[in-house]
Each structure stands twice: as C-alpha cells, then as structure tokens.
C-alpha cells in the first residue's frame, strides 16, 4: 500500500500542499480545511516544523463504531454510515481528521493519486 511520506529537510513551508488539497476536496483554496497540515515556522531563533498527514495506520477504521471507514488502497468514508461521533478524530495519532458537515473528513490520497504530492515543489512530499 502506497503512503504519503514527508521529509523536513526538503520542505520550504510554502503550504501549496494544503491549498491544492482543499481545492480538490472542498472546492476552494482554504488550507484550514485541508486534509493535511504541513508548515514550518520560526521560534526563538530556530526553524521548526509541524506536519500532520495521514500515514494510513488504520487506527481510525479499527475504532469506527459503525464501520463507516474502510481501507483498501486508500481510505473511504461512507458518509451515509458515518454518525460524526468524532472517535476517529480523537484516536488519530496525527490529529488530522476533522468532523465537519456531519461526517469525518479523512485524506483518501486523492484515490491513490495525491494532488499534494504533485504540487510539492521540492519533493518533500512523496507517495511510495
């Protein structure tokens, strides 16, 4: 199964990944609703990073009380089954699942062809 991978040594913190993710999933450029959150910032004379993205660990699917989440080559959320209970978001070790519009919003790696990887200008994000 191919997964997103990220290396901070190449990341320039441009957030093109979050912009294009939200474009494909939310229909506008709205990084606050992206399904990954990768950024760098300065703090007290140091360059720091924060990176939240789905690593396909499967914890969300295992904990879903209504079996709305399935993982094949990528994650699928059945919105009809999802009760927006928030357990998946709570258990997600990367804290990247959001509950909105009464459903869990989880990265599906654009069905195995992630746009964020295509957008990454420095190959900090890869899919392998």
């Amino acid at each position, binding site marked *: 199964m191919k997964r997103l991978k990220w290396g901070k040594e190449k990341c320039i913190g441009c957030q093109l990944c979050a912009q*294009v993710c939200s474009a494909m999933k939310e*229909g506008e450029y709205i990084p606050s609703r992206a399904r990954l959150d990768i950024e760098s910032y*300065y703090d007290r004379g140091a360059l720091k990073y924060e990176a939240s993205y789905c690593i396909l660990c499967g914890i969300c699917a295992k904990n879903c009380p209504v079996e709305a989440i399935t993982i094949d080559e990528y994650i699928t959320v059945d919105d009809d089954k999802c009760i927006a209970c928030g357990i998946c978001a709570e258990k997600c070790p990367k804290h990247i699942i959001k509950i909105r519009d009464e459903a869990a919003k989880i990265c599906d790696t654009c069905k195995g062809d992630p746009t964020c990887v295509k957008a990454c200008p420095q190959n900090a994000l890869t899919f392998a």
Partner: protein
Amino acid sequence: MYGYQNKVLRINLTDESATVEPLRMDFAEKYVGSKGLAIRYLYEELVPGIDPLSADNKLLFTTGPLTGTPVPCSGKLSIAAKSPATGTINDCSIGGHAALKIKYAGYDMIIFEGKLQKPGYVVITDEQVEFIDGAEVWGIGSHDAETFLSDKHGREYVVLSIGPAGENLVPLSCINSDYYRQAGRGGIGAVMGSKNMKAVLIKGTGGVKVPDIVNTTNRILDILHEDTLQEDNTFVFDLGTTAFLEACNDGGILPVNNFSDTTDEEWTQYNGDVLMEYRDGKRGCGSCGLGCGNFLKINDAVCEGPEYESISVAGPNAGIRDPYHIVKFNEVCDNMGVDTISTGDTIIWAMEMTEKGIYDFGIRFGDAEKMLEYVELIARQEGIGIELSKGTKRLSEKYGGTDFAMQVKGLEYPQYEPRGSWGMSLAYAVSDRGACHMRAYAPNEEVFAASIDPYTAAGKGQMVYDLGVFNAIKFSLCICDFWGTISYEIMAEVLTLVTGRTWTEDEMPVIGERVLNIARAFNQREGFNRKDDTMPKRLAKDALKNGPAAGQKIPEEAFEDMLNQYYEVMGWDKNGMMPESLIATL
C-alpha cells in the same frame, strides 16, 4: 470577478473602529492588485502635501487576486503609504505568510487610518478586529515583539511588527513579518510607528474561490513544474541572492568603500559558498515554490538570507570582509527595525566623511563593531544615532559630502554601481520611491545577460521603460521577483484562470505602464519633477579605478540624455511632467 474577496477592511485607529466596504472594482480592473491597486487608492484618498508622519497618512496592506491560490510565488504583500524618507509614494513588497492570512481572513486590502491614542496593536481574526494596549511590547525589538505576541495569541496568527526605529519615527525604519521578511524601504516602519501601532496580528480561516477549480489547479501545477521550477529560477534555492555577489563582482558593479570604487579581490571570504556552510534550514513564503530563504547561524548571529544588498553594504562597501559581521548586521537591523540598505548606506557615508576629514562621525571603513553599535543608536535615537537616523540626503545637506551621498529623493542606493551599468543610474533616478533596484533591474540586461552595451546612454530610456513596465504589472499581480521567467502570456493566463475574466497578453504591459503613471502622478502632485530625478555627482566626476568597468564614469550629458529618452517613451514632457490628458486616463 473571482479571485478577489471584494472586501476592504478599513480600520480607524483614532476611534478604534473598523468597517468593511466593497473593493473598488473599477480600480481593480485597471490596476489588478497589490502595488498598482494600493497606489491608486492612495492617489484617491491622501490629501496632497500631508505630513507622512501625521495621522493624515494611511497605511495600506494590499493583496491581489492571485493571493492565497497556488499560483507560484504569489505570496507577496504590498505595504504602502506616503514615505517619510522621500515624500513620494512608497509601496514595499513583503514576503512570508501575511498576504495569505489577510486574504483568508476575507479581505483584499486593509487600510489603517488615524492614530491610536496610545501605543497598541491590532488583532484581526477573520471578521473580528481588536485593539489591544501595547505597553508590554512598546520599546522592545521587532523579533522580541513577534515572539511575545506569538506566545500570547497563538502561532496561527501572522505578526507584522516594527522595532524601536519605527516607534521613534526613524525614516530608515522597516516593518518585519515572519521574523526575517521585511517591507524595508522608505521609512514604512515609521508610518506604522506614527500611528502608535507596534504590530498587526492576522488569522484567516476562510478561502479563495476561483472558477473551475480542478482544471485551474491542474493547469497552475503544470505552470509550476514547466516554468517556475526551471534552472533559471531555481538557483535561488541553492544560494538565494548571495548568487549575485559573484555576478556583480565579475561584472564590475559590486561597490567598495561607499561606492568609491568597484570589485573586491577578497570577495570569496564572504560569498555564498562560505555563507551557506552555516545554513541551518530552508524556508519559502506562502505559495512559493522556489524557497529562496536560507536560514543561517554563525555563532550568536542569526538571519534569513543574508541578501545580496546586506552582504554588500555590511561587507566590501563598508570595507569589512567578515561573514559573521554580515549576518550580525542583518540580525541587528531586523530586530531594531531598520532597512539594511538605507541604514548601511548612511553609516558607510559617515565612514567616508570621517576618512576624508569633512566631519568626524567617529567611524571609519572597516569598523565592524562600531557599525553594529551605530545601528542600535540610530534605532533607539541615542548619541550619534540621532543625527545619523536622518539619512544621507538630509545629513549631506547639513555636513557636506553631497557628491558621495548615494541617494535619490532621500532613498539610499541599493548595491549596484551604475558606472558599470549606466542604465541603473536612470532606473534609480526615475524609480517611483527614490533609489530602488526593484523597479527596473538594469544589470540583468547590461551586465548579466550582456544584451546591451553597459557603458552608453543609447537605448537606455527604452530599456528602463521595458523593465519598469514588466515589474510594475508583475508586482501588481503580487508575483515575487524571483520568478524571473514569467512572461506576459503566463501572467494573463493565470489571471484569467483565477478571476474568470479574460485578460490578454497585450493588456499586461498596458497595465504596467498605467501603474508607473499613477505612481508618477502621485509624486508630481507632491511637487516632484525632473529636478528630483538625479544622480549623485560622484558618478559623473570620478572614474572607477578597478575591475572590468575601470575608467568608466557617467557624463552629466549622458545621464540627461537617458532621462530625455525615458520621458519621451513615457509620454512626459522635458520637465518629466505628465500631461493632464494622461492623468485623466488613470
């Protein structure tokens, strides 16, 4: 039109109120965004003749339709006001993430009017605006303020702040954001300081809508990979603007000892290869792609860059060849909130004044430690710093040394020696805010590409016009300088994709020329004309002694010839004035 938020946030600092109004779409159609749009608004709203440091001045933060989209290198913000250094229009371009946060907060532009009753700062959280007492941050360094405010309000806020220099109304002061990004020139920090506003914090959680977002995004990504990420642009990732050091030294335009000569044999002591050994990370602006930011640490000195300008002014132009000093100078200038170019130029002018025995400012070429000390004195308005903070124009009018006061209209020279690139003397002279290298970058044609003879006046009016028009539209799209290969065709294509209105390739230079004209109209209204489009006398009197441009000087007649050519191409008269008929079209 899509791309825009169609909203201007107008903040009245005097009565601590905020209103939202529609964006003037008639202006947006004619000037697109960012630089052009900001200048058009200021032309409309500022009363001619106002004191730039009074509550009558306005401070504009302006984005463009591309801001917040993945169009590469579109993360720049225009910060504009009437300049206290020059009295001209002054629009600065700052990177980082501020532009994106403003757009995501729902605004195309923020206008700050009036003046806070006492020092404070403004926090913008989407539609909410708060005015907060600034006692805890007033008087401290810009970096220190950013750290304090990030801790207090949360890292999701972008911070724009001034240092002590801005608070003290120093005309060399800048605005910082993301620690190491600056709206550097023309004393823009003093305008913020004159409003008692130490900082602005912005958090935006909204989005930007465009037509046909899937196809628009895919096409933008094709442009990113096919055009932006080509070698002609990606060199900035490896070396940033330190790459210019070798090119400028080889081309005979790296200034030495306050522009008394060019070319430094010891340039490898502080070049990009040396500086990059201290690199501790890479960072770009929002929506970047190229990632020019080199985060460096040499012992206790930290900066992002250092940019070519800072290397030159704290290096060979100051008679200093020490990488640590360059980085420390950059850091101290940032934290104190002063522009490295104008502050550096003022100190090196003082060095030459002392060396020549005209006036003893107590500092000579090579005095690295004193140079750092003087930056703090300037920012804090103490001792000799009180005088030096006035900049080279006002100082030379008082103490002498006007021939080698390297400035136009009160804005100090960037670090490209015009005797090795004659067109640069014209570019500095006619730039809308005094000597600026970002308005028409002549060395690109005259030295690096060698597409035109650098030591002649012939063709330079047209060359500076062409370069100026190009940058004027590019910066009005809020595109970064470092996307050097962008064409009018690509500009029109991305604008069309994002706004849904059809923009044509031919329309781009028309808008660019209009931006140059509105800036000139503003300055003309303030009384500027040919008498102010000047060149320091040194360039006509003294021939260079070293390097590939040895023997070169720029005769006054050649300079006047270039000015005449430029005015003719612009459709201005011999006095550099634009006719009323032209102003009416703006």
